[in-house]
């Protein structure tokens, strides 16, 4: 029996690094400190066992060798005039580097799962920057914590305990008692039920409400109508007073902002609110990132290409313009003529029309798990699970990079090995 302490969780953007893992005969038999999400992934055993291929997507897969599958994957990418390489969030940074290199070599668009998650947050950062902080800063200082369009009880179960609400810190010795918790949402979520104040908005009115708060903050309450987005002005004025009274305030936002009408402009506006609050007191704002290393892809892609995601290498140099170069943009335009989906599940998480197009073109899947993407794939290459069977780098939601542990030995090749071999094969096909 082996006990691994201070292990890191490969599920959500919290990347909790205090897990204890019990391993017996290369099997994880017990886990301590993990939430339901982390435990389910680390303890899960539903895997694709061998590489598979099929020509007709309506027929069944046949098991093939890794050589065959890798060759076919390389052929598909090599022949494609508009390949899309999508996914990456459930993989380590070492995988991202290999992926970006391959995308360069085959002239692909590379995009990650942020495209249906927090890519709008990055678009907002282009406009306004990102006044943020590491989570420990929040833990030690934050006396007003706002969750806006985010629901950590469901999506980031240990966030409140470890960092933002219940955690005790240097200047927040009392934990929960020393902090005011505000939830802004369209539903009274379980997170909202735990808040000191719940501000309920009409769906899609975030942008208007944030502007109203900014107007009040800047001394122009007179122009704000009696109700904005279903919230009485009186409550907005009181909310501004509460925000201003903080010594250190923090706002954590989620898909409620990125996916509603106005998309990234909601976040753009929220960042301005935070910037303006800093004229009164200290405030930071942070996206609640979903996958444990979706942040890492953005980091690696940015330092390697200058752009965080949705990078089009068709012309050899990076070109970036979500709305034009993001995964759903090119799928919906039926432009993509081949796709590689790795460490992300477009089949499950893209709109039906995008999946319809995937069903029409050659698709290579690299993933440990059978999922809707498998259903629309021609070539499926199973791999080891990053962060459980493979060690390497992941970036927590606040940009802190951490080294994920290997808990057990893999029985399948790693993403890095598979991508290396595909790249090698592409070079051979090109006659290099």
């Amino acid at each position, binding site marked *: 029996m082996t006990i691994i302490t201070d292990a890191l969780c490969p599920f959500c953007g919290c990347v909790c690094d205090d897990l204890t893992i019990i391993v017996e005969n290369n099997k994880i038999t017990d886990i301590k400190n993990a939430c339901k999400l982390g435990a389910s992934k680390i303890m899960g055993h539903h895997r694709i066992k061998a590489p598979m291929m099929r020509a007709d997507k309506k027929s069944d897969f046949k098991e093939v060798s890794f050589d065959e599958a890798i060759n076919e994957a390389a052929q598909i990418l090599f022949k494609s005039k508009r390949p899309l390489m999508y996914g990456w969030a459930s993989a380590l940074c070492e995988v991202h580097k290999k992926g970006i290199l391959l995308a360069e070599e085959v002239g692909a668009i590379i995009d990650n799962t942020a495209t249906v998650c927090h890519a709008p947050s990055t678009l907002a950062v282009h*406009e306004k920057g990102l006044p943020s902080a590491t989570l420990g800063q929040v833990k030690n200082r934050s006396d007003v914590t706002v969750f806006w369009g985010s629901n950590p009880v469901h999506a980031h179960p240990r966030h409140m305990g470890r960092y933002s609400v219940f955690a005790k810190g240097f200047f927040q010795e009392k934990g929960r008692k020393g902090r005011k918790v505000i939830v802004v949402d369209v539903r009274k979520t379980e997170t909202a039920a735990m808040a000191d104040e719940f501000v309920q908005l009409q769906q899609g009115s975030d*942008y208007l409400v944030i*502007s109203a708060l900014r107007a009040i903050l800047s001394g*122009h309450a007179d*122009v704000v109508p009696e109700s904005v987005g279903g919230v009485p002005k009186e409550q907005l004025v009181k909310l501004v007073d509460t925000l201003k009274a903080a010594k250190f305030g923090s706002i954590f936002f989620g898909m409620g902002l990125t996916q509603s009408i106005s998309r990234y402009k909601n976040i753009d506006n929220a960042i301005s609110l935070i910037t303006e609050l800093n004229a009164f007191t200290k405030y930071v704002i942070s996206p609640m990132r979903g996958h444990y290393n979706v942040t890492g892809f953005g980091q690696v892609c940015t330092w390697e290409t200058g752009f965080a995601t949705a990078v089009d290498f*068709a012309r050899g140099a990076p070109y970036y*313009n979500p*709305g034009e170069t993001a995964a759903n943009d090119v799928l919906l335009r039926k*432009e993509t003529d081949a796709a590689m989906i790795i460490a992300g599940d477009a089949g499950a998480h893209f709109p039906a029309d995008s999946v319809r197009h995937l069903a029409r073109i050659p698709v290579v899947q690299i993933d440990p798990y059978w999922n809707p993407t498998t259903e629309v794939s021609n070539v499926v290459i199973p791999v080891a699970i990053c962060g459980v069977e493979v060690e390497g780098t992941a970036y927590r939601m606040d940009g802190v990079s951490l080294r994920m542990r290997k808990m057990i030995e893999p029985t399948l090749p790693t993403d890095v090995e598979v991508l290396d071999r595909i790249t090698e094969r592409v070079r051979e096909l090109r006659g290099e």
Partner: protein
Amino acid sequence: MQTVTIKPRKEIKISVEAENISPDKFGGKTEKEIQSLVAWMGNQKTTLGELFSVKVEGSGPAADTKIVLEGDFSRVKRIGEGMTAGLIMINGNVDMHLGAKMSGGKISVKGNVDSWAGREMKGGELIVEGNAAYYLGAGYRGESCGMRGGKITVLGNALDFVGEHMCGGEIFVKGNTGILPGLSNNGGKIVIGGNTSRPGSEMSKGTIIVNGKVDEMMPVFKLEGDEAVDGVTYKKYTGDVIGNGKGLLYVK
């Protein structure tokens, strides 16, 4: 006078990037020279001649060059990018970035234009008889200025973010626009014939005139009273008040 007529040889599915379709690139060139200009289809480097038939009549510099696009260009991007002079007449639809960064000359489109038409435009004129998509006359990611000069006219409708980050120039949309027209307007003029929503957020300068209905007003404008513009009476607002903006918003 030089007239260059271009037609796609076959249906284009994967977008072509053809910033070389521009009077500046065609002016004074022979058919063969134009055919050999580079274009990209996906990751394939090709030539205009491979993708399009090219017919040249007469010869002349850019300013005296008229380009006529016949057929379906709805998958051809970046036409007229950075053009400084001359004329492009498009008889159908075109893809994204039409006339991006153009500083002179004129582009006229019978059909629809996709997003980013007139992006970062500095001068010249763009006329669209059909509809425009997103980011008409807007900027590039992260830039503080979108359109700086020139004139865009759309006879149909436009979608969201018309004139985002405009620093100058004029946009007329006869129909409706999507949300947030004139966002961060910093000195341009936008006239909307139909309806819109959330106009003028974060505007610091410039003018937005809405002749139809405003679905949702931004709560950042000060009502100054009624005012007549070109004989029509509007409610006049100033803002965005958050940044002490001097923008003018007129709503009928």
